[in-house]
């Protein structure tokens, strides 16, 4: 039975779904990476994802227009991000706890709106896989990498983009400066508040897309607590990835590959209790965090509100 796992067909299927499952972690995690690099711990990611997932789903459910749904998810996510920025930057609230507040708010409101506006679990037809010409016909690699829906491609393309923005642009320099030494950045004329507002709002928008990638691309439904704490995992993966986009990519891939393995183990009827299999990615994340967390130091100003002295 175990040998069933190692047929080519199963391996290809597993890797394909691993790539697909990494999508929401990449969007949410890249947004969180930017916001943490600027010094803000946004723990409301899961709530922002739920709101984005609902907004996207609702618009698609009503109009059938996927593009419009995606825009709605981005807008709602960005609004939630803006709220988090106001709370953590302007009001300088404790970030860990206010993030839990944002999470509870998003969890409750998305459910409230769902009950009020839709009521029953409905399905929609979401983004369909787009095979990339030529590349998708490469044996093995083709189906694994080049036959996904557009949000999956977007997530993976965003990794180098985020790396570039963070390391090669003035905006990225400002983000890193504000996250490491806000007082110095401030004295050089960088507006700490403006940079943090930008990253946290952008992070919210990306969380919105992450939610939509579930509700209008992968699962194509909305229900109570659709994300099931996936946003929190994304935050963990940011630590895992050492606050770097490529590190996040590695973390997201490992986590979702283990998840895919777990799904296939169950599909093939291999006698491992389902619960134990589902548990594995979480156990693995703790183990890897314990083994790796000292490798990289978090941004110095993470969770610290900035107040100009004097």
């Amino acid at each position, binding site marked *: 039975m175990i040998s069933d796992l190692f047929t080519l067909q199963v391996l290809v299927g597993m890797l394909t779904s691993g790539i697909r499952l990494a999508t929401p972690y990449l969007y949410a995690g890249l947004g969180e990476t930017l916001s943490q690099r600027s010094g803000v711990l946004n723990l409301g990611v899961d709530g922002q994802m739920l709101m984005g997932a609902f907004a996207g789903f609702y618009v698609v459910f009503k109009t059938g227009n996927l593009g419009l749904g995606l825009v709605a998810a981005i807008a709602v996510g960005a609004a939630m991000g803006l709220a988090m920025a106001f709370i953590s930057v302007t009001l300088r*609230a404790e970030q860990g706890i206010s993030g839990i507040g944002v999470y509870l708010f998003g969890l409750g409101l998305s459910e*409230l709106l769902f009950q009020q506006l839709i009521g029953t679990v409905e399905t929609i037809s979401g983004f369909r896989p787009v095979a990339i010409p030529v590349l998708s016909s490469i044996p093995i690699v083709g189906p694994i990498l080049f036959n996904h829906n557009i949000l999956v491609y977007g997530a993976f393309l965003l990794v180098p983009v985020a790396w570039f923005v963070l390391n090669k642009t003035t905006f990225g320099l400002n983000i890193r400066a504000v996250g490491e030494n806000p007082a110095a950045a401030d004295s050089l004329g960088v507006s700490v508040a403006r940079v943090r507002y930008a990253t946290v709002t952008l992070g919210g928008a990306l969380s919105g897309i992450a939610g939509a990638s579930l509700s209008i691309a992968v699962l194509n439904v909305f229900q109570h607590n659709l994300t099931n704490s996936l946003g929190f995992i994304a935050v963990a993966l940011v630590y895992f990835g050492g606050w770097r986009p490529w590190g996040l990519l590695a973390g997201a891939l490992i986590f979702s590959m283990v998840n895919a393995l777990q799904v296939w183990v169950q599909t093939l009827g291999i006698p491992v209790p389902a619960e134990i299999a589902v548990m594995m990615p979480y156990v693995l994340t703790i183990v890897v965090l314990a083994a790796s967390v000292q490798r990289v130091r978090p941004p110095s100003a993470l969770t*610290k509100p900035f107040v100009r002295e004097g």
Partner: protein
Amino acid sequence: MTRWRRSSQARNTHLGPLFNAALPLLATLAALAVGALLLLLLNANPLEAYAAMLQGAFGNPNALAETLVKATPLLLVGVGICIAFRGGVINIGGEGQYIAGALLATVFALHAPAWPTWLLITVAVLFAFLGGAIWGGIAGALKAYLNVNEILSTIMLNQIAVQAMNFLLSGALIDPLQAAADSQIPQTERFAVLFDLPRLVPTRLHIGALIAVLVAVLGYVLLWRTSLGYRIRAVGINPHASRYAGIRVERYIVLALLLSGAFAGMAGGIQVLGVSHRMLTDGSATGFTGSVGFNGIVAALFGGLHPLGTIPASVLFGGLLVGANQLQRTLQVPTALVPTLNGLVVIFVVSSEIWKRRRARMQSIPGNEPDRAVPEDEPAKAALQANETDSPDGRIIEVEDDL
């Protein structure tokens, strides 16, 4: 901050205690106001809705008893949260710790020797305490010795606890009747009646409510009247200074999370012994916990991170849970209003801290200290803001005052 604002606030410092006590209330009013807007959007009259909730939560003896039943686990979890947050660790693993506690109590209840009922109940509750302590202690050890952020580890441990619960309830601990039937509902058999917590009045209200109040008092004594609590708070306020003063910081980080988890575990055990009399799961965390791990944070924050303040706060939020059911029955407003309001309360309470800190900063200016009795709960709140020494808020002065 501009100079004139400083002087105008300085004049108001005699209103300090009142101001500090009123802040969470004002924050809650603000949250209720936003909630009212939501209710309007949901086509419900906010006044009618809030009246229905009040009636449903406190309107008659039965409602009140039900509110206290809901408040009991909130209070226990909340006391644990006070300890963790005062110790400078953010425990959002209440869900998992609650499950771990309930599981151990359940294992004991299903395999209990023939002891007198008081002993059985005592040992079962101790098992629950132990279960939560283990689950919280793991996160504490990971933070103290391996530098794993406790927010992340507690989230993972929540998920692991849920799966462990599902695994055990559908396997080793399943009700033999369910195991034989086709339905295979993942639940245990009903515990022996000997394990039923005594009822206080002829309602569902059980003795767990009194235990919870006792625990809150003990939590207060622990935090403010023992050297253990003193050290936990010192580490929470300033780990570097504590280390310099010879406190073994790692040990108190582990203890803060361990105790925090233990009280959450106790909540889980008391809930299965006092209310459900068996353990059952729908596969999700909230299905079993009702989000008590998160709602306990809300209650503790509202209670000023003070175990005694958490007593009335948990009654209030227990009432919110019961009232929301009434709201759904009478006005068809979904109970999801509760997490929404809870989230708003957290946001508003935490955000309003800025006014408190401003006042604290005023008082730390030399020659401007009219009222030193106030900030008992000030330093730890400030410590939550940041665990480092280099914050510009003049907290260090407050620290001396408290310790």
